[in-house]
C-alpha cells in the first residue's frame, strides 16, 4: 500500500486543503518554481513547484516529488521533449476508459484509520513530562485542520518511539499529509497502520511482516512508493516511468549515483508496484498504460521486470530511447501479447529497420497502433483474437454409450434435477450412492466474460475442495453417502434450470465410457459388473437474489452401475460436481469457420507430409509407401523406420523410388 505516499500532486484533488493553520511548518524547498505561500507565510508544497526540487535535511520523501506531466503536459522532464510527450500521451490516451474507479489512487489515500508517527523522540518536546505526546497531538490537529475542517484525534498511545493515533478516515487523510513536516526540530514520519477495524485491508507490508523487514529496506520501499505515487495518473491509468534518471525522488535516494543505471532501480520499482495489488485483475484495472520514454534504453533487458509486473499492459511508450533492432525486445519474450499501442518514436530502430512495421506486427499479434499510426483495425484485432487457436485442439465429445443407458440417465437427470430432486434420488440413487460438490472460485474466464458472479454462499459451506479443506472431519462430513443424506444437501441448494438437452445440446459436452469391474451390488458376480463413467460439462441457471447473474458453469462426473434391485435398474455409484463462474464451453469450432478448422488440419497434414518426406529420404520408399508405413506405426518416424528395416525384403519393387525411376 502506498500508505505514506504524497497526496498533494494531483491538481484538482489538492485544491481545497491548500490553506493551513498557523505555525512554523518547514516544508522547505529550493524550488525555482512559484511556491505557494499560505496565509501565515508558510510555504505550501504544491504540484506547481515541480522540477529539480531537492529537499533539505534528512527527511524522508516528503510530500510531492513532482507532477511529472503525466498526461497534463507540464513540468515534464528537463529534456525539452514536452511537445513529443504531449503527442505520445495523446496516443496513449486514445481508447482509455477514464470513468472506472481509480484503484491505485484510492490505495494511496485510504490509509485506514490509524497512523503511526515517528520522530517525536528526537524532538525537543521529548523532554516534556509526558514525552511530548500531548504537544505532538495538538500540533497534528492544528496543522491538519483547515478552514472547513476541524481535525480531531480520537485516540492515541505511545509504543516505543512511535505514537499511534486514531481518527476518522477523513481526518486521517489530512494528518497523513503532514508526513515529513518538522515538529520541534524533528522530522515527522507518518504512515498508515492497520487498525483492527480495517484489518481486511490488503497490506502486504502489514504489522506482522513489518518488524521482520529491516527499517532500511522499509525506508527504501516507502520512498519508491512515493516515487510511484507521484508518477501515477489515475485518470489515464497511466504509470509514467519516463526519464527515471532525472527523478528527484530517486536522485535523492542516490540510486543514480555514479554509473548506476535504470537496470538497478527498475526491478525494485516493479516489485514495490506489483506488491500494491492483490490480484492481476486489480492491476489490470489500475494501470493500462506505461511510458518508459527517455530512459536511455538500448535494450529492454534493463526493464525486463515490466513484463512480469504488467503482463496485461495495453499501451506502452518507449519513445526516445536507444533501441536499434528487434532483438532489443528479446528480454520480454512473448510477453505483452495484448498490447494495443506501442510507441517507438525517437529510437534509432525507426530509421535503421526497414521491416519495422511487419516485424512488430508479427511480434505483437493484436497491436493496433504503432507510433501513432493504425496498423490494424479493431475488427482485424478481434478476428485475430477469435482465430487464435488453442494450443490443444478442442474436440467434440466422445460418447460411447452402452445400450443407451448413459443417454437415458442424462436425459432424466437434467430434467429431474431441476424439477423433482426427490424423484431423481428415488430413481437412481440408493443407500450406497456417494455425492460431493466443490466450488472453483479461480476458474479462468475469457476477456469477454467478466460479468459479476453471484455469491457462492449457498455452495461454499458444502464445498469439498480438497485443495482448500484440510480438516479430515470436514472432508468426511461433506461427502454425502446415501440418498437420504444427498436429499438433505440438495434440498438446501438453490433451484436450477438446465438448458434443454434436446434443443440446446451445444450447451453441453458429455462423454461416456464403459467402466468394467464395478462391485456387483447383488453380490452375484465376483469379478464385478460393467458400468459407465460419464463426464458432463455445461451450465445452469440458478434461482438466486442476484438479478441478471444467474448462470453458472459446472463439470460433473458420474459412475453408473447396475442397480441392486429390478425396481432400480441403474444406480449412481458416484456423483461429483464442480461449480465455477459461468463461461461458454470450449466447443469445437463449427465448420462455418473454415479458417480455424483448416489451420489445425493443415498443421497436422503438414507435419505428416514432412515426416513422410523424411522417411522417403531415409528409406528410398515412395511417398505413398512411406505414408502407409507411417500410418501403420502411428506416425512415429523411428518406429516406421524400424518396421521398414524389418520388412524391406518383403516389399514389392514398386515401393521404392529408385526402382520406379530406373
Amino acid at each position, binding site marked *: 500500500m502506498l500508505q505514506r505516499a504524497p497526496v498533494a500532486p494531483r491538481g484538482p484533488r489538492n485544491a481545497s486543503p491548500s490553506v493551513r493553520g498557523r505555525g512554523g511548518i518547514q516544508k522547505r524547498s529550493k524550488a525555482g518554481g512559484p511556491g505557494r505561500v499560505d496565509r501565515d507565510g508558510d510555504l505550501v508544497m504544491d504540484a506547481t513547484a515541480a522540477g529539480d526540487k531537492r529537499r533539505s535535511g534528512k527527511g524522508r520523501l516528503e510530500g510531492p516529488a513532482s507532477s511529472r506531466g503525466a498526461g497534463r503536459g507540464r513540468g515534464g522532464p528537463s529534456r525539452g521533449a514536452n511537445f513529443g510527450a504531449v503527442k505520445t500521451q495523446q496516443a496513449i490516451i486514445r481508447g482509455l476508459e477514464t470513468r472506472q474507479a481509480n484503484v491505485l489512487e484510492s490505495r494511496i489515500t485510504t490509509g485506514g484509520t490509524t497512523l503511526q508517527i515517528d520522530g517525536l523522540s528526537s524532538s525537543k518536546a521529548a523532554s516534556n513530562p509526558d514525552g511530548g505526546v500531548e504537544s505532538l497531538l495538538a500540533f497534528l490537529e492544528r496543522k491538519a485542520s483547515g478552514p472547513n475542517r476541524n481535525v480531531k484525534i480520537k485516540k492515541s498511545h505511545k509504543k516505543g518511539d512511535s505514537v499511534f493515533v486514531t481518527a476518522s478516515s477523513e481526518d486521517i487523510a489530512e494528518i497523513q499529509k503532514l508526513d515529513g513536516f518538522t515538529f520541534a526540530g524533528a522530522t515527522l514520519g507518518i504512515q498508515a497502520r492497520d487498525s483492527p477495524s480495517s484489518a481486511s485491508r490488503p497490506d502486504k507490508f502489514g504489522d506482522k511482516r513489518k518488524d521482520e523487514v529491516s527499517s532500511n529496506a522499509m525506508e527504501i520501499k516507502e520512498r519508491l512508493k512515493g516515487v510511484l505515487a507521484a508518477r501515477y495518473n489515475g485518470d489515464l491509468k497511466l504509470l509514467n516511468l519516463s526519464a527515471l534518471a532525472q527523478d528527484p525522488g530517486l536522485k535523492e535516494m542516490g540510486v543514480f549515483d555514479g554509473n548506476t543505471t535504470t537496470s538497478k532501480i527498475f526491478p525494485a520499482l516493479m516489485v514495490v508496484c506489483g506488491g500494491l495489488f492483490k490480484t492481476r485483475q486489480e492491476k489490470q484495472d489500475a494501470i493500462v498504460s506505461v511510458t518508459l520514454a527517455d530512459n536511455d534504453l538500448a535494450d529492454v533487458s534493463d526493464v525486463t521486470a515490466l513484463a512480469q509486473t504488467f503482463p496485461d499492459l495495453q499501451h506502452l511508450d518507449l519513445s526516445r530511447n536507444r533501441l536499434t533492432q528487434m532483438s532489443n525486445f528479446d528480454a520480454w519474450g512473448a510477453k505483452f501479447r495484448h498490447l494495443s499501442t506501442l510507441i517507438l518514436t525517437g529510437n534509432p530502430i525507426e530509421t535503421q529497420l526497414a521491416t519495422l512495421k511487419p516485424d512488430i506486427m508479427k511480434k505483437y499479434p493484436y497491436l493496433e497502433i504503432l507510433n501513432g499510426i493504425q496498423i490494424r483495425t479493431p475488427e482485424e484485432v478481434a478476428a485475430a483474437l477469435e482465430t487464435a487457436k*488453442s494450443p490443444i*485442439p478442442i474436440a467434440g*465429445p466422445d460418447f460411447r454409450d452402452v445400450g443407451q443407458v448413459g443417454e437415458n440417465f442424462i436425459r432424466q437427470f437434467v430434467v429431474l434435477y431441476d424439477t423433482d430432486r426427490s424423484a431423481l434420488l428415488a430413481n437412481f440413487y440408493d443407500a450406497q450412492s456417494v455425492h460431493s460438490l466443490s466450488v*472453483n472460485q479461480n476458474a*479462468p474466464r475469457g476477456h469477454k466474460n467478466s460479468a459479476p458472479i453471484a455469491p457462492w454462499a449457498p455452495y461454499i459451506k458444502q464445498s469439498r475442495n480438497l485443495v482448500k479443506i484440510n480438516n479430515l472431519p470436514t472432508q468426511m462430513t461433506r461427502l454425502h453417502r446415501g440418498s437420504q443424506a444427498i436429499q438433505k444437501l440438495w434440498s438446501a441448494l438453490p433451484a436450477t434450470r438446465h438448458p434443454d438437452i434436446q434443443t440446446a445440446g451445444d450447451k453441453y459436452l458429455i462423454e461416456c465410457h464403459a467402466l468394467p469391474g464395478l462391485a456387483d451390488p447383488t453380490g452375484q458376480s465376483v469379478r464385478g459388473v460393467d458400468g459407465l463413467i460419464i463426464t458432463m460439462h455445461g451450465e445452469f441457471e440458478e434461482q438466486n437474489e442476484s438479478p441478471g447473474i444467474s448462470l453458472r458453469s459446472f463439470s460433473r462426473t458420474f459412475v453408473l*452401475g447396475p442397480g441392486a434391485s429390478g425396481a432400480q435398474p441403474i444406480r449412481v455409484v*458416484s456423483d461429483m460436481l464442480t461449480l465455477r463462474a459461468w463461461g461458454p464451453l470450449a466447443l469445437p469450432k463449427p465448420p462455418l469457420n473454415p479458417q480455424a478448422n483448416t489451420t489445425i488440419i493443415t498443421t497436422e497434414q503438414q507435419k505428416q507430409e514432412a515426416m513422410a518426406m523424411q522417411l522417403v529420404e531415409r528409406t528410398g520408399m515412395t511417398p505413398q509407401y512411406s505414408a502407409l508405413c507411417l500410418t501403420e506405426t502411428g506416425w512415429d518416424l523411428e518406429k516406421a523406420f524400424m518396421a521398414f528395416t524389418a520388412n524391406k525384403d518383403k516389399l514389392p519393387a514398386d515401393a521404392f523410388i529408385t526402382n520406379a525411376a530406373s
Partner: protein
Amino acid sequence: MANFLEVAQQFTQFYYNQFDQDRKQLVPLYRENSMLTFESASVQGATGIVEKLAGLPFAKVQHKVATLDAQPSGESQGILILVTGALLVDEEQRPMSYSQTFQLLPDGAGSFYIFNDIFKLVYG
C-alpha cells in the same frame, strides 16, 4: 477410510508435477488396461497413452489445480478423482480451464494406478 483422500491428494500433486516437468515419465502410473481420453481421443495402454501425452503440441506446460475432490469408488478400493484447474502452455498468457477425471485402482502391490483418465478443456 480417510486413506483414499491422502492417496488422492498425493497422486494429484505427483501427477501434475511430473506432467509439467517431463510428461514422458508418466508411464509407471498407467497399465496396459488404462484408458486415456484426452480431448475425446481415447488411447489404451501405458505406452500409447504416454506417447499421446508426449506428442501434445506444446513444450512448456503448467497445471494449476483449483479444485480437487475424491470419492472412494465401490468395493474395488478404487478412488474417483475430479480435478478442475487452469492450464498454461508455452508462452500463451491466457490460461485454459480444464476438467480432469481420474479413476485410480489398487495395483495389488500397495499402490495405485490410473485406470481411467479423462481430460477436457472446458474453456479454451
